């Protein structure tokens, strides 16, 4: 009966259940507000008790996120959220662990923890808010800032190439990578749900706009005039077709991806690459994650979603197995095992 009651409680959860009593202190117009709303939309649909969700973050504007969610939350230190989230998940695998991070937090100071969390395939839902700038420290370039960008610490423009978080995640063996845009709430909630369903490390990069320090940085992707031509939605099993007139597509040609126009040069819909998010091989997924304007549209949606053993499940299996097969059941057994003598 209790279980049924609980199921009912879980089923009746609404967005309001997840809104905390704290005043949200992000700048007006910041993309973070929309992401927060999308997460508030998704959490009631997870089928999880509020108590079984933990939001873990690092440091930066986005990392204030846990304070705004009425769940368990842990605001850790700069760059280390992945390590903290790993500890939470391993300690209690029943918890749904969501990690909030930014491009600086995740790919600069937290780079090591990020790649290893991906590699281990721990069941964490990682939301990476990418505004290509350090916002909280007021406008220094991040590892995701495009070459040549003038910022507080690059007055002549940066002279280093940025990371692409998708390439980094897939290269580090993440089993799930998706990309979303802060302006598309419906798409975000769908992708977050897919990330939740994925068993293992799920990295979602959200192209997020910082009104103050990198305003318009994603404009060449999200602008009203260009968005149809500069975004290709990755839908599993569907051809990668895009464009205002749905006449453009992505084709695999000469070992690379190419943008083609259906109906031109004999290209038909059949020639367009059909998206397969479940392909173990990282080749095409890497190429899709890599695509950037002006040559390519940006791939949006779930790019990679493959099945692999998770670290947490493997650990639990080994523990269960060892418990079942060991003669040593407690500390008294252990203390008295092996070579001992009596006086």
């Amino acid at each position: 009966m209790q279980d049924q009651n609980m199921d009912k409680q879980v089923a009746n959860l609404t967005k309001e259940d997840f809104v905390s009593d704290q005043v949200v202190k992000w700048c007006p117009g910041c993309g973070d507000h929309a992401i927060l709303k999308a997460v508030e939309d998704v959490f009631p649909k997870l089928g999880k008790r509020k108590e079984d969700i933990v939001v873990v973050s690092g440091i930066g504007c986005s990392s204030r996120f846990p304070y705004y969610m009425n769940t368990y939350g842990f605001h850790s230190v700069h760059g280390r959220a992945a390590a903290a989230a790993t500890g939470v998940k391993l300690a209690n695998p029943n918890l749904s662990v969501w990690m909030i991070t930014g491009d600086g937090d995740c790919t600069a100071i937290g780079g090591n923890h990020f790649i290893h969390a991906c590699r281990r395939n721990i069941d964490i839902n990682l939301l990476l808010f990418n505004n290509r700038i350090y916002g909280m420290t007021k406008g220094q370039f991040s590892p995701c800032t495009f070459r040549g960008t003038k910022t507080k610490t690059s007055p002549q423009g940066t002279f280093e190439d940025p990371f692409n978080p998708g390439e980094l995640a897939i290269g580090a063996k993440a089993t799930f990578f998706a990309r979303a845009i802060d302006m598309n709430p419906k798409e975000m909630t769908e992708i977050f749900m897919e990330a939740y369903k994925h068993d293992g490390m799920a990295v979602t990069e959200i192209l997020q706009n910082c009104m103050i320090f990198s305003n318009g940085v994603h404009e060449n992707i999200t602008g009203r005039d260009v968005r149809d031509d500069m975004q290709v939605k990755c839908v599993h099993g569907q051809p990668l077709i895009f464009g205002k007139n749905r006449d453009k597509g992505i084709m695999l040609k000469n070992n690379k991806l190419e943008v083609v126009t259906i109906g031109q040069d004999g290209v038909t819909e059949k020639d367009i690459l059909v998206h397969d998010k479940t392909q173990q091989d990282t080749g095409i997924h890497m190429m899709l994650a890599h695509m950037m304007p002006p040559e390519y549209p940006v791939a949006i949606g779930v790019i990679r979603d493959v099945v692999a053993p998770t670290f947490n499940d493997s650990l639990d299996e080994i523990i269960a197995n060892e418990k079942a097969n060991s003669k040593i059941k407690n500390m008294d057994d252990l203390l008295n095992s092996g070579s001992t003598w009596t006086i």
Partner: protein
Amino acid sequence: MTGKSKVVALDHVVIRFSGDSGDGMQLTGNLFSDSTALAGNDFATFPDYPAEIRPPQGTVAGVSGFQVHFGHKPVHTTGDLCDVLVAMNPASIKANMRWLRPGTIIIFDSDSMNEKALEKANYTADPTVDGTLADYQVVKAPISTLTKEALKDTGMDMKSILKSKNMFALGIVMYLFNRTLDSVYDYFETKFKGKPEVIKANRTVLDAGFHYADTWELFTNTFKVEAADLDKGKYRNITGNVAMAWGLMAASERSGRPLFLGSYPITPATDILVELTKYKNLNVKAFQAEDEIAGIMSSIGASYAGSLAVTTTSGPGLSLKSEAMGLAVMTELPLVIIDVQRGGPSTGLPTKTEQSDLMQALYGRNGDAPLVVMAAKSSAGCFYSAFEAARIALEHMTPVILLSDGALGNGSEVFRIPRMADMPTITAPLAKANDPDYMPYRRDEEKLRREWAIPGTEGLRHRVGGLEKENGKGNLSTNPENHQIMTELREEKIARVANDIPLQEIDGDPNADLLVVSWGGTFGVVRTAVDKMREEGKSVAHAHFSYIMPLPRNTEEVLSGHKKIVVCEINRGQFAKYLRMNYPQFKYEQYNKVQGLPFTLGELENKFNDLLK
């Protein structure tokens, strides 16, 4: 067993087995320890091997040693100067010269002496004949030749035959100490089960060594160390690092909180991680992280989620963990941080011991970030120190740094096996589900600890983190007065731990002329030195500190009433400075040594005698 030589009774003996890294000295030493246990002696052991995995053969750098200190009386140290040195090559003599005392018996494989070996050991002439070893009793035995002879009919290849020469040396030593060979036979039976020819070969060589010593009357005397007067009970031999791991597991069992270790390999702390990875059968989750920071951060995450969380490291790793320790202070979560100290600064002396992380442990964090600092005092004692560190962390909701050191961690001692039912229960302050008044930073009046509201518990959802919190409610707060209140509360919470730890003991006359103060891993040698001087009628007392932050409530009393106080430590005076800061009314003499080595008995006695003049 009768022998032709006279049997001399000794109170205690230090024997060092020393040879090239490939000579099997660790095994030889361990087998001798097993036999020592059966003889009923108290004992302690210390392995001393090179940092390099395969150092150049035959060189001083490649010497691997294993020391056993055993006695009829209680043994508190792994010993310093040795009574017997087994040296399998010239380099082993060279490497151990500083550990010889006049009269040390050196059992030397004379077959290892040749020009090349001398050159590798940096000898220009044979030390066994040129007077270098005039103060010692050198017993030359052609160990390699006799081993070959003993096994010549077995059909074994020469390499395998020579591998067992350590058993010949062991046979000699067993004879010297009037031991029976049964425990070694037992080891062969277990280790080489199903390989009767290997068992036979090893027995043959061991017996040959034993009989050789007897027949050739190698020694004018043999020795007997009577059984020690140990309490009745069941015993085992345990290293400090293993004892540490087991103490944590015991605390997990007695607290009901699952054990989580987040750690990264670092000498000389690695063995705690290695040990804990073995016990998944006891639900231990030991996570080898990508770096030191991830080690402690994963532990903090696990602590937030309700585990008894631990991170283990050595000095350089503790430096890396500083920021995260501050987070644990701020979030007021239970966490045990074990630092097995080594020589510093920087990479320093990874395989050598030191006590120089004390100030780092006390103050190495940004902000006013107090936490509990404790120190283990003996290898076997690491079991109880780890248990106690976990108890304080869980019951006071605070990070605790427990300092060990390389000598304690790698050394082993006789450990009386406790019954788990005799260990105290540990009760963490878990918040009650659906408590309508729950607030993340609500505190109890006695300990000032906050409650532990574990994710998954209904009605206690809350957020914590590294930003300053509003007193009680735990919301973010930058209010100036609130920061003052919270800073003082964090300080007072740690100060109140003093109400929950034992009073500082003073061994000897509380008004003795000289009070010897020590802390951590130097307990054994300092206590032995003080005991010895008291037997000589000198007015010396000993206060050995295991609780450092906070200090025991009666510390001032303990320090009062002496003509002199001397603080002994393996660093440049960090604890002395700390005492000076806390109790400036006393004058503190210092005895400090920073050679990567433990104190020796002799040097302490000299210092104390000087101070008593």
